[in-house]
């Protein structure tokens, strides 16, 4: 590169810089103080994110379990299509000890990690390597009086099985909503029948605290496929057996209004037990991958919903040996798990099924593999830089 004949005006230089990957921008923090401070302005962060959105600069994480050590970790896959999604690096999260947390998001390139069995949570920007540990919730757990046993029961277990992570644009705040299941038992008895109570907690990044909100009648019943937040609203599958026909429903939560609603899933989309309806976010809308529960050759329908109207986007015909979808990568490529628990890729452009060189055959619990996708982003979260105690990154050994 040479010295230019003239200097570009600052606004244009910033325009060029906003098109750079986060890693380059991080390096260029030391070019000069003005650049370093400019990269932290909301305007720049937003332009950079917008560019990443337009260019679909997606990163992919595959959750795995090491065949030798039984360690859970994430493999970050290459997002260059011609590299066939090989593993670039492996990411361990010792902050969660030996368990992998549930991953929610991404929202603006941020992921929320929640331990389902303990009050341990973090918000993570994997692009900038910023890690924010959330405070424990100080919400009071209610007492449980069992009229039948005429005694107060003991709180035996707390679990956090469902949640969502999203953004409230009115208050410019990132929020985490978490469903809490409290298990009570009668400690006097040897074989006690458990009783359950439910709470809902909401965390705000701005206030860095949790608060309790009223629990809806219907709770989430299934884990989602990937991201369950889009455009200010979070979604979960739920069921109601109220009319003795188990209807599939969607429970939604508006991050701004902090209100729950119920949406029906029309019959023509698919209903249990003949079909699985896996909710996810596709191209900026709530969608679902619908596929039959019992068949040898599985075909997948992708439906998308907008304002109550469901439209079928496309169909992938009969792929033999494929069991479950894992989620979408770039350009509509669909990751799948087959009957041998291998990870395959359905290439949307060539309509072909491809094996990936991820070598999951040595892993344990391959049925439990999941895919998480996030965009590059500079968004700041008042966290700290990744340290080995929380996050360990290892480049892939075969390079």
């Amino acid at each position, binding site marked *: *590169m*040479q*010295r*230019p*004949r*003239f*200097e*570009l*005006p600052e606004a*244009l*230089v910033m*325009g*060029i*810089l906003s*098109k*750079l*990957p986060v*890693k*380059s921008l*991080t*390096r*260029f*923090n*030391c*070019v*000069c*103080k*003005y*650049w*370093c401070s400019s990269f932290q302005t909301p305007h720049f962060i937003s332009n950079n994110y917008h560019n990443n959105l337009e260019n679909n600069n997606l990163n992919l994480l595959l959750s795995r379990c090491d065949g030798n050590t039984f360690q859970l970790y994430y493999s970050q896959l290459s997002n260059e299509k011609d590299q066939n999604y090989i593993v670039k690096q492996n990411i361990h999260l010792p902050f969660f000890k030996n368990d992998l947390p549930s991953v929610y998001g991404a929202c603006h390139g941020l992921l929320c990690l929640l331990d389902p069995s303990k009050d341990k949570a973090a918000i993570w920007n994997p692009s900038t*390597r910023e890690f924010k540990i959330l405070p424990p919730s100080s919400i009071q757990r209610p007492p449980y009086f069992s009229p039948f046993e005429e005694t107060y029961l003991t709180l035996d277990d707390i679990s956090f099985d469902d949640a969502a992570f999203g953004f409230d644009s009115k208050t410019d705040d990132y929020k985490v909503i978490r469903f809490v299941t409290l298990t009570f038992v009668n400690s006097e008895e040897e074989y006690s029948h458990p009783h359950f109570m439910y709470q809902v907690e909401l965390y705000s990044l701005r206030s860095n605290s949790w608060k309790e909100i009223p629990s809806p009648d219907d709770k989430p019943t299934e884990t989602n496929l990937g991201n369950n937040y889009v455009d200010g609203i979070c979604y979960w599958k739920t069921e109601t057996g109220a009319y003795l026909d188990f209807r599939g429903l969607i429970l939604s939560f508006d991050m701004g209004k902090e209100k729950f609603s119920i949406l029906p899933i029309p019959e023509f989309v698919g209903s249990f037990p003949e079909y699985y309806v896996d909710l996810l976010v596709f191209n900026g809308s709530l969608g679902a991958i619908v596929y039959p529960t019992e068949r040898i050759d599985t075909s997948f329908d992708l439906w998308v919903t907008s304002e109550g109207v469901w439209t079928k986007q496309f169909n992938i015909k009969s792929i033999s040996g494929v069991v479950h979808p894992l989620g979408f990568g770039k350009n509509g490529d669909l990751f799948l798990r087959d009957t041998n628990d291998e990870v395959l890729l359905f290439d949307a452009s060539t309509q072909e099924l491809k094996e990936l060189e991820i070598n999951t055959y040595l892993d344990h619990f391959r049925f439990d593999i999941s895919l998480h996708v996030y965009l590059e982003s500079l968004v700041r979260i008042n966290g700290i*830089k990744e340290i080995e105690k929380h996050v360990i990154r290892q*480049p892939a*050994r075969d*390079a």
Partner: protein
Amino acid sequence: MGSTSTKIKLRTSDQKVFEVEKAVAVQSQTIKYIYENGCPDSVIHVHSVSGDILSKILDYCKKHVNSAAGKEDISPEELYEWDANFVKVDQNTLFDLILAANCLKIESLLDLTCQTVANMIKGKRPEEIRTTFNIKNDYTIEAEEAVRRENKWAFDMLGGVGTMVIEELADDTMSKCVTNAKSRVCVIAANQIVMMRSISKLANKKSIDVYKQPQNPTTPRIKESVKQINVGTGFIELFFHFKCKM
């Protein structure tokens, strides 16, 4: 078939006059505004653009107008390739195109040229970036060092840096590096994959020699001194002494 398409006259900063079809010229929002709000027959002055640059820009606009109108049989992939070739110019011309696209308000061209520069610079070192944009480094040596340390993960995988194993030196060793020869202290992280292999190979050695591949010769540097260090376990960082020849 001769069509009576409207033509617009443009005069550049170096007094060259171009007569262009209206559909092509109004790709520029600036020209469009002036044309629609002024006298349609008069010549529009594009003061800040030279004849050479305007000529190139009009090629771009013509290609895109024709492709969109279906006048030219060109697929999106072919247009993408044409664009990629269009920006294969020297740096000064590229900067000229950016300025002109900005002033003429041709959004797609501005995007294309800015993305091209972004792609050119994304793998560069900060020193090279300062040259490209003529930026004065206003950090003190210590402050820059602190910023580099905080963001050291972003410095790996840079081209041209050699095989080396690095270790975190104690603070007093670092200050020795800084005061010794009034030169810059640069923290260089090696290609991480290479580093992993090096550690396993050197596990039994007490100290190592550091070998460095030649760097990009545009900023010639002389290696002043290399500290002999002890190989520990885990990741290691090495501080070099450089005398920069400016």
